[in-house]
């Protein structure tokens, strides 16, 4: 199959175009989607380029909305229950709270409450702008709170090819899917298949194989974990890096099998610590692979503080190669008793 170099953002645009071409019921709904402000509704940034979604699909299917997240999300849900397959562009993940009632009480619950009468084929895309000095109102990484809501599927891609294949699966899914796209990854480029392909949900990607410590990494923590693994290899520590790719469903078997091999787990997750995705992954392993564990499970996460604007303050907060490597060294080197005493 033909491959071409795609950025993370370009891969998202490509998946959207594929799906728009494949199925007339697919529509795109969101603020500033006509003008392609966020770069995923046009092949180029200019309307004059061929590949502009508005020109290709028209205003009936490219729905430029008022700034009204609550009705945007609810209307997409109602449309999904009655024959459309909307892709909703909510731009920043920090704006999802505006529509929280619709997400939790309608999108996630309707099919269940109505005894299976409704399906909800709708995708909600949003971008996580953390790490770019946008301040507390534009830096959220809210996927953990949605993981606590049964009925939603949660996708956090970390590479261009995953972004394309997972988004296509999301659009094909008859269930509601939320995708969280880390902006710091937008620029990532790799060779991506040009043809249609789908990556199944619930299947983790082993980014790097290793034998001493398992690092489960999410979003920007994936490339950072790989960098940490490279550095640690020189120190003689062999790190296996696993990217779950979808958090609901979560490929816990892949994690458990890796931990069965390594006996040590670090979870690197840019969400806030308390009740974050790292907590869940840790708890699964502490419950289901306890016997294999040789050391405490370390979480490398964003501490429970809000996000400051200043470049002097922000970056230190997120998991990075150093903090991941430190945690790996800790669980690889220290005997449990030492750690317990250190507390």
């Amino acid at each position, binding site marked *: 199959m033909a491959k071409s170099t795609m950025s993370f953002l370009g891969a998202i645009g490509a998946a959207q175009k594929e799906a728009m071409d494949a199925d007339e*019921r697919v*529509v795109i709904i969101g603020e500033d989607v006509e003008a392609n402000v966020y770069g995923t509704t046009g092949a180029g940034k200019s309307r004059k380029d061929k590949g502009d979604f508005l020109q290709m699909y028209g205003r*009936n*299917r490219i*729905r430029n*909305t*008022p700034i*009204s997240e*609550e*009705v*945007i*999300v*609810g*209307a*997409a*849900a*109602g*449309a*999904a*229950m*009655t*024959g*459309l397959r909307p892709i909703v562009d909510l731009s920043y993940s920090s704006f999802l709270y505006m529509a929280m*009632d*619709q997400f939790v*009480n*309608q999108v996630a619950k*309707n*099919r*269940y*409450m*109505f*005894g*299976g*009468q*409704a*399906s*909800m*084929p709708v995708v909600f895309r949003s971008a996580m702008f953390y790490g770019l000095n946008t301040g507390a109102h534009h830096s959220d990484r809210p996927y953990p709170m949605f993981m606590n809501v*049964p*009925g939603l*599927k949660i996708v956090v891609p970390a590479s261009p090819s995953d972004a394309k294949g997972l988004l296509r699966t999301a659009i094909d*899914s*008859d*269930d509601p899917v939320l995708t969280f796209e880390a902006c710091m990854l937008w620029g990532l480029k790799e060779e991506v298949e040009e043809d249609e392909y789908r990556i199944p*949900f*619930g299947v983790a990607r082993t980014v790097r194989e290793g034998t001493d410590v398992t690092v489960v990494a999410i979003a920007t923590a994936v490339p950072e974990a790989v960098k940490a693994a490279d550095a640690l290899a020189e120190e003689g520590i062999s790190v296996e890096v696993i990217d779950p790719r979808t958090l609901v*469903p*979560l*490929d*816990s*078997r*892949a994690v*458990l099998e890796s931990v069965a091999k390594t006996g040590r787990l670090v979870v690197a997750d840019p969400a806030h610590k308390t009740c974050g995705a790292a907590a869940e992954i840790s708890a699964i392993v502490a419950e*289901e692979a306890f016997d294999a564990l040789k050391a405490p499970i370390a979480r490398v996460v964003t501490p429970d503080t809000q996000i400051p604007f200043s470049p002097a303050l922000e970056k230190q907060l997120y998991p990075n190669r150093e903090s991941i490597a430190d945690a790996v060294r800790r669980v690889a080197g220290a005997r449990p008793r030492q750690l317990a005493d250190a507390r």
Partner: protein
Amino acid sequence: MDLAAMGSTTALEAQRRMLRIRRFDERASKMVKRGQIPGTVHTSIGQEAQVVGATMALGDDDYMTGNHRSHGHPIGKGSPLGPLMAELVGKGTGVCGGKGGSLHLADFNVGSLGESGIVGSSIPIATGAALSSKVLGNGRVSLAFFGDGAANQGCLYEAMNMAGTWDLPVVFLCENNQYALSTPAHTVTSGVIAERAAGFGIPGVRVEDGQDFLAVFDAVTEAVERARRGEGPTLVEVVTYRFNEHSEGLRLGVDYRDAAEKASWLEKDPIVLFRKHLVTEGVATDDELDALEREVDAEVEEAFEFSQTSPFPDPSVAFADLYTEPFGPTHLSRDGAKSAEQAFSTIGA
């Protein structure tokens, strides 16, 4: 519209549906008192003209969403009573398989996309159904029922603006029964609900006599026709009154509704009024209408029997229907050894 223009079939069907709601809700109320329904229910008794005037203005294929005062809407839309009653009891034969209960009735067969226990929350859903009609060009109209209390939820105005901008075929139907639980509308509502439409560039209509079936039917019919012509949404506010307490069995220490007010509204029973009208206009005789009442009584009795004799769902049903494409804990379902149900029950409890 006068009765002649409407035709006697439609007029009698309207009376039948109003009666169905009345008898169904009276029975449900009794069942709550007898402990035959867990939790509580909210009846539409007194509001039947407002409900049926709206639902009869819709076609069979049209969509509808509602709220916690929930039974009247699907009944008005033509949903059979048995599965509705069974749902109130939590039976497996319920319209939602027992998963929904009184607050979450839905019958997709008649375009009922679901009642919402969250005040205001189903308004965007109806707006979205109208969006799909518009995009697909299938001519279906959508109607959102909500109360005077819900009229202070912001999503209504987001929905009116979106629908106004895109000329979506949706009718926003405010059931102004003048109270939200214990709270009189006039103490928490600034301005007049129907007049809020104008600022959003859409027509707003206030039906002052919401006890008059024809008045409601006419106003909603006009709104539905407008929507169907592609001219966009309308807000219809219907002034009415609930005869019962907010919910059955609720007892408040405070008389928030004046006794004289209550008495004067009880005089305006929509079913009594419409019956008189049917007789006066010669659409039906008293005997015929008595027969109709007996038919409805029998229907409700049958629905009750159905609700009582139907079995409760198997406990495993609690784990079905969350997703169209379920997965269960991945590492369990993938090895095929355990079903999703087993996986859930291991993990859950």
